[in-house]
């Protein structure tokens, strides 16, 4: 039997157990020790000449003891980290359908431009007169972000999405304080379906959090919001498109209700990639929204960072943007680093980070935007939405949809209703996908859906790739329904490791390598 790529499929799982090896290695799958087990303190992989004799100025502060850091020679280090890399799945490995994480193609042109010496090899505090090109990147990026969002101002410095949330909410807090309502407006509304960063952010900066229920159709109703409004409400934090993959149909009404009540509308922009070039948050009534440059404009996720989370701001919040920022006046741009240098009318609420933010990510994102252009970014959003709905259409007869009444935006959400009685859980299903060569989708999120499976293919996938993915998931779904339970509960069978014991890791935390006790000591 041939699969859809014309390759034989027989015998891959059950035909024979491989011979056990003497080393525990399996050809290219090798067990790789920790550097602490293979390195030595006296080994080094760098050549640095000893300095000419000199008189130390460290005084009594000179270190005396050992540090306890092993070194590896250059070839040993190369091999160690190459082998580690081979135990990782990335977007260049295959389809990475993590909902809400937006794993799209990472163009290597972006890496090339970010490494140009004028961007990577400039210091944040070298004279401003020596970095006009860096300021130009920041200005251009700002112009692109403001144009795409229809917002009049942007704060670039936040270092990640959650940091951007904090920045936006701080601007809101500062604006409320400036109106003399700081003591009374201290409650933030957060829908039940929100990402956990939203309530955490509101609490972090001193707001109390009140939950807004999710309607049975997965969206937030303006009546539910209105029922909670009062003089104590500072803002709502709403994700749009939301974490169920749905564009909030009443968003304009919700924004208007907030404004009428003297409150602000914070939009979590994590899913902005679904509507770039299609709709502008500024037109919807948004006061502040962070943009995950790494998701929407494709900078590599790098195993969980670095990110970059610029925040676009409405006219009402613009004066409160934190330092540093670039101020344009009479055609020339000036870097404002201290509140005292801010132009008249500005009251920066403070500073988010030591320097100017994630320049390396600005360059990558701007390169991406220049490459796509306005037409390409619009097409990318449409293709992302099209691909998500194509997957939904291809699976909805086998897997259950919690919210069938709205089109999916860039991600398709399934629940585990269809797995009832099979003995297979969402997690089991996800782990079985690993054996088929796929990274699992986002599971158990959003929390409002039982056993959630959130699939985001992004615009980077071809139709052939989607067809193969749909076919694989259909095969797995049929197997789950056909009592092939062992395939799932024992999965993954073919990954470098079998399923990991996360409970043990949390109950007995081992957070660093500890040298084994000497034999004599161990015997005691």
């Amino acid at each position, binding site marked *: 039997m041939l699969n859809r790529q014309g390759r034989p499929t027989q015998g891959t799982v059950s035909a024979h157990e491989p011979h056990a090896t003497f080393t525990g290695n399996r050809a290219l799958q090798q067990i790789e020790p*920790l550097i602490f087990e293979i*390195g030595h303190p*006296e*080994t*080094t*992989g760098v050549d640095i000449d000893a*300095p000419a004799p000199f008189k130390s100025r*460290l005084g009594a502060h000179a270190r005396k*003891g050992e*540090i306890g*850091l092993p*070194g590896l020679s250059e070839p040993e280090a190369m091999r160690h*980290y190459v082998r*580690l890399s081979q*135990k*990782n*799945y990335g977007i260049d490995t295959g389809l990475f359908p993590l909902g809400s994480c937006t794993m799209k193609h*990472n163009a290597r042109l972006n890496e090339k431009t970010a490494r140009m010496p004028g961007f990577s*090899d*400039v*210091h*944040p505090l070298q004279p401003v007169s*020596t970095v006009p090109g*860096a300021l130009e990147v920041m200005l251009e990026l700002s112009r692109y972000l403001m*144009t795409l969002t229809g917002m009049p101002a942007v704060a670039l410095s936040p*270092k990640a*999405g959650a940091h951007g949330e904090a920045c936006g909410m*701080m601007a809101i807090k500062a604006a409320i304080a400036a109106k003399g309502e700081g003591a009374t407006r201290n409650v933030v509304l957060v829908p039940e379906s929100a990402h956990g*960063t939203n309530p955490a952010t509101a609490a972090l900066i001193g707001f109390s959090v009140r939950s807004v229920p999710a309607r049975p159709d997965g969206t937030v109703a303006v009546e539910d919001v209105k029922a909670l409004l009062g003089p104590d409400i500072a803002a709502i934090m709403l994700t749009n498109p939301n974490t169920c993959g749905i564009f909030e*149909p009443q968003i304009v009404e919700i924004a208007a209700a907030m404004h009428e009540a003297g409150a602000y509308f914070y939009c979590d922009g994590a899913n902005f990639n679904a509507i770039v*070039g*299609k709709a502008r948050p500024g037109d*919807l009534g948004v006061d502040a929204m962070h943009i995950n440059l790494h998701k929407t404009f494709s900078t590599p*996720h790098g195993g969980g*960072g670095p*990110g970059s989370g610029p925040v676009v701001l409405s006219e009402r919040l613009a004066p409160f943007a934190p330092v540093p920022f670039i101020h344009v006046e009479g055609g020339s741009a000036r870097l404002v680093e201290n509140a005292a240098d801010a132009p008249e009318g500005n009251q920066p609420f*403070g*500073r988010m980070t*030591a*320097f100017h933010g994630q*320049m390396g990510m600005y*360059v990558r994102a*701007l390169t991406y935007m220049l490459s796509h*252009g*306005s037409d390409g970014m619009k097409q990318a959003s449409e293709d992302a*939405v099209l691909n998500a709905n194509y997957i*939904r259409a291809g699976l909805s007869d086998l897997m259950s949809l919690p919210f069938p009444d709205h*089109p999916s935006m860039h991600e398709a959400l399934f629940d585990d209703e269809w797995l009832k009685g099979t003995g297979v859980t969402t997690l089991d299903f996800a782990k079985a996908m*690993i054996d088929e060569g796929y990274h699992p989708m986002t599971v158990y999120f959003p929390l409002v859906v039982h056993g959630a499976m959130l699939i985001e293919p992004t*615009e980077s996938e071809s*139709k052939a790739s989607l067809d193969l993915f749909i076919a694989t998931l259909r095969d797995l779904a049929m197997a789950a329904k056909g009592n092939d339970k062992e395939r799932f509960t024992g999965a993954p069978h073919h990954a470098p490791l*079998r399923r*990991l014991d*996360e409970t*043990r890791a*949390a109950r007995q935390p*081992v*957070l*660093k*390598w500890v040298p084994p006790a000497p034999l004599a000591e161990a015997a005691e």
Partner: protein
Amino acid sequence: MRYLPLTDTDREDMLARIGVADVDALFSDVPADKLLKAPVDLPRARGELEVERIMAKMSARNVAASSVPFFVGAGAYKHHVPATVDHLIQRSEFLTSYTPYQPEIAQGTLQYLFEFQTQVAALTGMEVANASMYDGSTGTGEAVLMAHRVTKRKKAVLSGGLHPHYAQVVRTLSEMANDQVVTMPPDVAAGEDILSRIDDETSCVVVQNPDVFGNLRDLRPIAAKAHAHGALLIAVFTEVVSLGAIVPPGAQDADIVVGEGQSIGNALNFGGPYVGLFAAKSKYIRQMPGRLCGETVDAAGQRGFVLTLSTREQHIRRDKATSNICTNSGLCCLAFTIHMTLLGQAGLERLAEVNHANAVALADALAAVRGVTVLNESFFNEFTVKLPRPAAEVVEALAAKGILGGVPVSRLLPQAGLDDLLLVASTEVNTNEDRAAFVAALAEVL
């Protein structure tokens, strides 16, 4: 549009399979009057060659650190990074992977995070470390909030030797949370009386070492006084290479150690991305912000690694979480780990020695220039000089001569009346010729 694989035929087939007439039918929840009718007012798609030229043109307008004698520090440092580091972090499986939510196919990321945590704990002399923060400054803000949680107090005391931008980040975050921050005046000579500011309401004392003016500090008396009052000592560093040469904060009884790791493995990048290092005593692990990687076993008994103690985090605790952070500086901490592995203890000690030797040579050379005074008793690779003219003017005059000669203190502290002070840093990249050029140019412009 080389990044988009779908053809128009594909799109038509897919729309038919979904059962809609056109793609806008999938945007039917967007209010019709808000749906854009035409592309936004930005340039259309461009090919790789053209984009590369546009970016290269902007890049060329900046003066790169490697192209001139370079002595700028104050929280970010120009070091040499072995070619192996950038090669390895660009491997697809590292570069294009996500947060390791599925540990069976993310052991590469998880194992290097575990190695990173162990390295940071060893360097700082602490019991545990997390898997990195955004940078040193945001890490310091988080450390203060952590001290508030541990002590259930709300007053932080910041040393006048703390980097002013770090102090601003702490103040912004703490004051938004309605907490109190006491900031000591700028402390050029490291003689501040911080002990007298510690009382029974103090949650933590935040002291940088080497401090922003380059002075080396003895943290032990501060730790003792803080502990006597039930407060924590947060030790901060902005130059991690210094830990190859000086007594680590863990040996001085710090409770939380936080710093900037940019110097090892990472480029200057005009301020970011960088990597925040964060370590603590192990009794505080459940109050730590950020991500932690832990060791465990798989179903076959093999050692493996997973993200752990997530019950501290926002995706479980929501508004009760230890922070709102949901990421780390993954790739930057990988660069740190690889570079640190290449160095090893022997390499780090040698690197630190060369940094210090070059700084001593520079300090001696600058002190010989008429009108220049070096203010530090002790220092590592950065120090403060007093000039007969405003430092900001001097730096501009030096830049015009092709020398990037340091950071005027007035750029960090415009209101402090310290306009004649200049922070000067020297690392292993500075040659004898660089130093001679700096000294000659300085003598000319003064």
